């Protein structure tokens, strides 16, 4: 069955494109024994927003509260002009009347129904006039055409999640809520499902809120990042800005690094290299099989960026970017985290405190950032 040929990719007109854009505003308060939530979230009405934090940080609770699944949560939830909850005005729209799609960590397919019946379940409960999503497109997008007549018990974990995503999409939601959809899967299954999520983001103009505690998923998917800890919002903003903040624990981790959105500028097929352009800089990476001009997301880990005062003239390192030091944070373990400005884009560099002192790294200093490694995401 060749759906690509009959449908064509251009038919993904997107869902949100036909709706008024609206930010998602959620002021949430909840008190449980041993846990309290007090979060003010303002999430963009487009793209992927990640709610990120360790377990117990309240990220899943936030998501469930937005969906209306936490009956004891007080506060206000609105998407655009549509108010879903306003405790002060005693407004609480029940879950089944909120036009949202939800994907749970454990898929929660109905075991007594076939895959097809699972997918139809939500769709047939939405008035025909409000259905904007085409079954064939969703089935093709998630690659589940061959699974439709199976029972959920005969699906792998990754297949279950893809069906669960399709089922949620078929309700023509205004926002898609994903609660750690990959957390229950092994590494191979994660790698199987993640590209479908990337496709979903790129081909359906549907705002998504993605709960995760895995940074590499977030780095690949998210446009906007909200950091949560013990029921409070630590930081919220575009992923590039949040991952470049030296004051957050995120940057202190071994893998911590800045996510940068670039464009494929040039392909040097002779050397098997591609040049990725961003702001006023560019980095060379191993060849990327995509068209020039395509958006490419990269992550530059702080440990992979070293600093030099003079331009290194005879070095094997290809990627040297002129930069200005914005800030330096020393930790008690003899390390310094240096925030850099490269033509408007922020990068982080982790060096030893001795190096930082010998080079007299301080705000305003002009340096050369040598990038030893670039992770191309997705």
């Amino acid at each position, binding site marked *: 069955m060749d759906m690509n040929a009959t449908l064509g990719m251009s038919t993904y007109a997107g869902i949100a494109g036909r709706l008024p854009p609206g930010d998602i505003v959620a002021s949430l308060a909840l008190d449980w024994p041993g846990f309290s939530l007090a979060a003010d979230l303002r999430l963009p009405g487009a793209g992927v927003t990640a709610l990120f934090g360790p377990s117990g940080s309240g990220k899943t609770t936030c998501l469930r509260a937005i969906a209306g699944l936490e009956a004891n949560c007080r506060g206000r939830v609105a998407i655009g002009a549509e108010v879903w909850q306003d405790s002060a005005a005693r407004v609480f729209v*029940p879950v*089944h009347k909120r036009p949202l799609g939800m994907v749970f960590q454990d898929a929660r397919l*109905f075991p*007594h129904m076939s895959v097809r019946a699972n997918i139809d379940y939500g769709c047939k409960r939405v008035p025909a006039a409000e259905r904007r999503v085409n079954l064939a497109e969703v089935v093709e997008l998630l690659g589940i055409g061959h699974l439709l007549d199976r029972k959920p018990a005969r699906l792998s974990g990754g297949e279950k999640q893809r069906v669960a995503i399709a089922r949620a999409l078929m309700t023509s939601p205004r926002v898609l809520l994903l609660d750690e959809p990959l957390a229950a899967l092994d590494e191979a299954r994660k790698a199987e499902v993640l590209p479908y999520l990337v496709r979903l983001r790129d081909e359906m103009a549907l705002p998504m809120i993605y709960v995760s505690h895995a940074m590499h998923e977030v780095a690949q998917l998210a446009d906007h990042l909200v950091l949560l800890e013990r029921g409070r919002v630590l930081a919220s903003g575009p992923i590039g800005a949040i991952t470049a903040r030296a004051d957050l624990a995120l940057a202190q981790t071994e893998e911590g690094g800045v996510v940068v959105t670039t464009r494929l500028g040039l392909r040097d097929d002779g050397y098997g290299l591609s040049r990725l352009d961003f702001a006023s800089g560019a980095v060379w990476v191993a060849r990327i099989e995509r068209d020039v001009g395509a958006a490419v997301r990269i992550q530059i880990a702080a440990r992979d960026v070293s600093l030099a005062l003079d331009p290194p003239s005879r070095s094997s390192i290809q990627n040297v970017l002129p930069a200005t030091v914005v800030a330096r944070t020393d930790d008690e373990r003899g390390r310094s985290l240096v925030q850099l400005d490269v033509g408007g884009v922020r990068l982080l560099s982790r060096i030893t405190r001795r190096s930082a002192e010998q080079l007299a790294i301080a705000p305003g200093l002009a340096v050369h950032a040598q990038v030893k490694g670039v992770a191309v995401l997705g």
Partner: protein
Amino acid sequence: MNETVAPLIGAAEWSAIRLTLELATLTTALLLLIGTPIAWWLARTRSWLKAPIAAAVSLPIVLPPTVLGFYLLLLMGPQGAVGQAMRSLGLGTLPFTFRGLVIASVVYSLPFVVQPLQAAFQGIGDGPTEAAATLRASPLDRFFSVVIPLAGPGFLAATVLGFAHAVGEFGIVLMVGGNIPDKTRVLSVLIYNEVEALDYERAHVLAGGMVGFSFAVLLLMTLLGQRGSWMTPGATARG
């Protein structure tokens, strides 16, 4: 020497069999109707009333049927609250009638229906209903489209246990229904009569028939339960 003796299963026996099946069928239908909401409430509520109500529903398991029958008889009698209400509504009396027997039977068998249903509902957990809610299903819609199919084994167990229990009860029948041929004389009472009359041959036919019937019912339930194992509560994985 027994050419003139009536057949082992005669008019009295057939009447008792018919009456027993009518009583058990009607009781089971009413039990499912009443027991399902009670079991659902017990499975979901966090109210302090849960424990006392669960205990009250389970009382027939521990009480001798004569105790239950005694109080039901008082309640339904001319001086009892139910009896007086019935009379003021012009509905006739309940004790020693088939209707009274059905009511007593429902009360007596309630825990055998409520408990398997409650266990099935608890086994399903919140996962499937939450998912259904995010798929636009209203609470009643969720109950019929997700909960009832997933609780299938629980309903099967409840139906079989309720029916079998209604077929087999004796004490409460004697207390509330008496021993009236064609009205309240069910199989268990007839067997008692026959044993009292030392007519062991007839008692054997009916008692043996009930052993066979009960065994067949339980066997069928076990086999159906195995076949339906895809929908046991444990299969709806959570977390």
